[in-house]
């Protein structure tokens, strides 16, 4: 440590002689002396690329793997920079540079799956969707193994579609929103406006946090068990009655369990930032508490609440597992979430992938799944975008008078 400090101090002292003789690499600037020249990283990078290529050829044997080459070069570059800095400067700066490079590497590593995923979905889904716009308007009722086989063997156009999935997702999500927004809104009003930080309020906050961690499939099982209990207790235990349990409404209940905590958290946060002066001004005018909440507090925070609700909708619209166990899947279109099985778009994707329509020719099913995945991503991204725009555009002006 002490030598390192000494070295830095020595290096930092002005050395006019060196600059005159042109020995110093950076014109003898007092602040950059003792640092390695700027071009070092390029030399190390070039060296890493060359050596990396060599290692890849030796290890790889047959065929040159570009991925392997890039990985080896990246590792060599990070090590090379550490060693070079350590030799040319000191240990502390070398460690600093090492971690800087590793942090950058983490960023690049995280980008790879995202780019790969988006690329795959767009490259597979977009051409399919453009070539077969009927995917958006047809369901799977007339599609079977034979039609898919014909698509593969005789080049017939892609049959079927996922309009039933779109309708199912729409109905189930709308119902879930209708259930969870009032409950979530009222609960957060209780937390911010009525509670005085007692045990009841604290346990609600704690368990809302815990609820955000409920596995989605457990939420599905809960909704299924709850509806089954209701049906067997009040309607009957015959096979026809048990068949009733699986419907769009059950899926909506499952999604509500996932949605309520998200709505409570975001709404609570928004209500808390409403300035107390507004409430006090309203009380001073003799307005009752519930009217203050309805006419002052909620309108002030409505943009934040709407944006939070939209994000919650976006989250549950992409859920698969809870809908799979509560609403099943269907090949035909139905608008009725209160009777019979219902397909949601994510479940459609899942079924097409895991259980292709034509087991011998899974390609048409895969193409339909990618097209549906593209539509689903676009829906979810649009909802996210709307949430951001709503939050920004309708935000109350913060300037006080």
């Amino acid at each position: 440590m002490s030598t390192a400090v000494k070295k830095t101090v020595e290096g930092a002292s002005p050395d006019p002689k060196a600059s005159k003789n042109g020995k110093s690499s950076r014109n003898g600037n007092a602040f950059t002396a003792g640092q390695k020249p700027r071009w070092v990283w390029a030399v190390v990078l070039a060296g890493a690329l060359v050596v990396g290529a060599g290692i890849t050829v030796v290890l790889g044997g047959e065929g040159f793997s570009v991925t392997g080459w890039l990985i080896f070069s990246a590792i060599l570059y990070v090590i090379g920079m550490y060693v070079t800095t350590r030799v040319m400067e000191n240990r502390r700066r070398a460690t600093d540079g090492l971690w800087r490079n590793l942090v950058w590497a983490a960023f690049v590593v995280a980008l790879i799956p995202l780019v790969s995923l988006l690329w795959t979905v767009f490259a597979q889904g977009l051409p399919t969707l453009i070539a077969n716009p009927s995917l958006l308007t047809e369901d799977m009722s007339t599609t079977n193994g034979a039609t898919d086989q014909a698509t593969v063997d005789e080049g017939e156009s892609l049959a079927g579609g996922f309009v039933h999935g779109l309708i199912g997702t729409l109905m189930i999500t709308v119902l879930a929103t209708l259930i969870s927004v009032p409950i979530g809104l009222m609960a957060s009003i209780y937390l911010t406006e009525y509670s005085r930080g007692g045990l009841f309020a604290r346990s609600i906050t704690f368990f809302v946090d815990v609820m955000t961690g409920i596995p989605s499939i457990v939420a599905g099982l809960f909704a299924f068990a709850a509806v089954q209990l209701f049906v067997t207790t009040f309607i009957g235990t015959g096979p026809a009655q048990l068949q009733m349990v699986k419907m769009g409404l059950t899926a909506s209940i499952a999604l509500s369990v996932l949605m309520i905590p998200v709505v409570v958290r975001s709404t609570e946060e928004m209500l808390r930032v409403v300035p107390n002066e507004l409430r006090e001004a309203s009380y001073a005018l003799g307005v009752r508490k519930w009217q203050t909440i309805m006419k002052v507090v909620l309108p002030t925070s409505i943009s934040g609440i709407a944006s939070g609700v939209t994000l919650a909708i976006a989250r549950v619209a992409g859920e698969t597992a809870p809908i799979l166990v509560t609403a099943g899947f269907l090949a035909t279109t139905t608008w009725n979430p209160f009777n019979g099985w219902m397909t949601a778009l994510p479940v459609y994707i899942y079924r097409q992938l895991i259980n292709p329509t034509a087991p011998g020719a899974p390609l048409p099913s895969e193409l339909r799944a990618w097209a549906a995945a593209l539509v689903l991503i676009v829906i979810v991204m649009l909802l996210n975008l709307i949430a951001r725009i709503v939050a920004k555009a309708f935000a109350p002006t913060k300037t006080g008078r």
Partner: protein
Amino acid sequence: MTEQVTEARDPKSSPITKSSGNASGDKIFAGLSYGAGALILVVLAFVAIFLVTESLPALAPTLFSDQDSISSADNFWVYVVPLIGGTIMASFIAILIATPVAIGIALYISHYAPRRISTPVGYVIDLLAAIPSVVYGAWGMLTLSTALVPVYGWLHDVLGFIPFFSGDPSTTGRTLLTSGVVLAVMILPIITALCREIFLQTPKLHEEAALALGATQWEMIRMTVFPFARAGIISSVMLGLGRALGETMAVTLVLSGGVFTLSLISSGNQTIPSEIALNFPEAFGMRQSELVAAGLMLFIITLAVNMVARAIVNRNKEFSGAN
């Protein structure tokens, strides 16, 4: 006419009380909001109660059903323990991969990247969080698994002596390790978002003091940011673990399941959520109870993990930003 007179005399209709609405509205509103809060607690309690009721036949077949044992094994624990093992293995792979990368990106956003890069990067991370899990599953099943096949062959050749990499490498790449990688990608945004918030809340004065004493950027981060954020990092990793434990589609689509095995690169293993998703649609009677009971085990595990994480966050509420 007489009616009007009585109305005017009635104190209830005086303009003062009229303008402020009626008092019962206040009571109703307070009651409704209290009820909504209570309903949330009731729902959570019902989740536990319903799961227990539905799984009793599988937990104790002799007492609660007319069968001697459950349908897929001798007793429930023989059935569920390998599933728990698979679930935990997949989640730990995900945590091992995601934690360092997530902390790295969080540091990148909070301390390394210039502002005009860090804001879009934050958006990109949020974007990752918004992609539905079934799309991740599809990507893992059709793209990532094939890309990893040569890697598995190489791992088997070089590290085959470790039990995790013994066994025949899968030719489709649809293994527990692939599932773990997909899970890692899925929980990355959660851990990153939480860590970023905490890192950004490090007191600026601490950081500047460290830099003024001559610390390099990394030394500053090690001396001020990490000690400040330790509890927050732990809890965010645990929240990520909770998400990984309960994630269904990434595993269901990617993994070509089977009996429990230590090998991560051959097909086999199964996780609880995936087992439920694969079998529940066709299940009835005892099989259904088994799956609900497996779900109950998952519920208990994730509840424990989440409660510990939340307790850590709440205890350090004053100086961490993870809530």
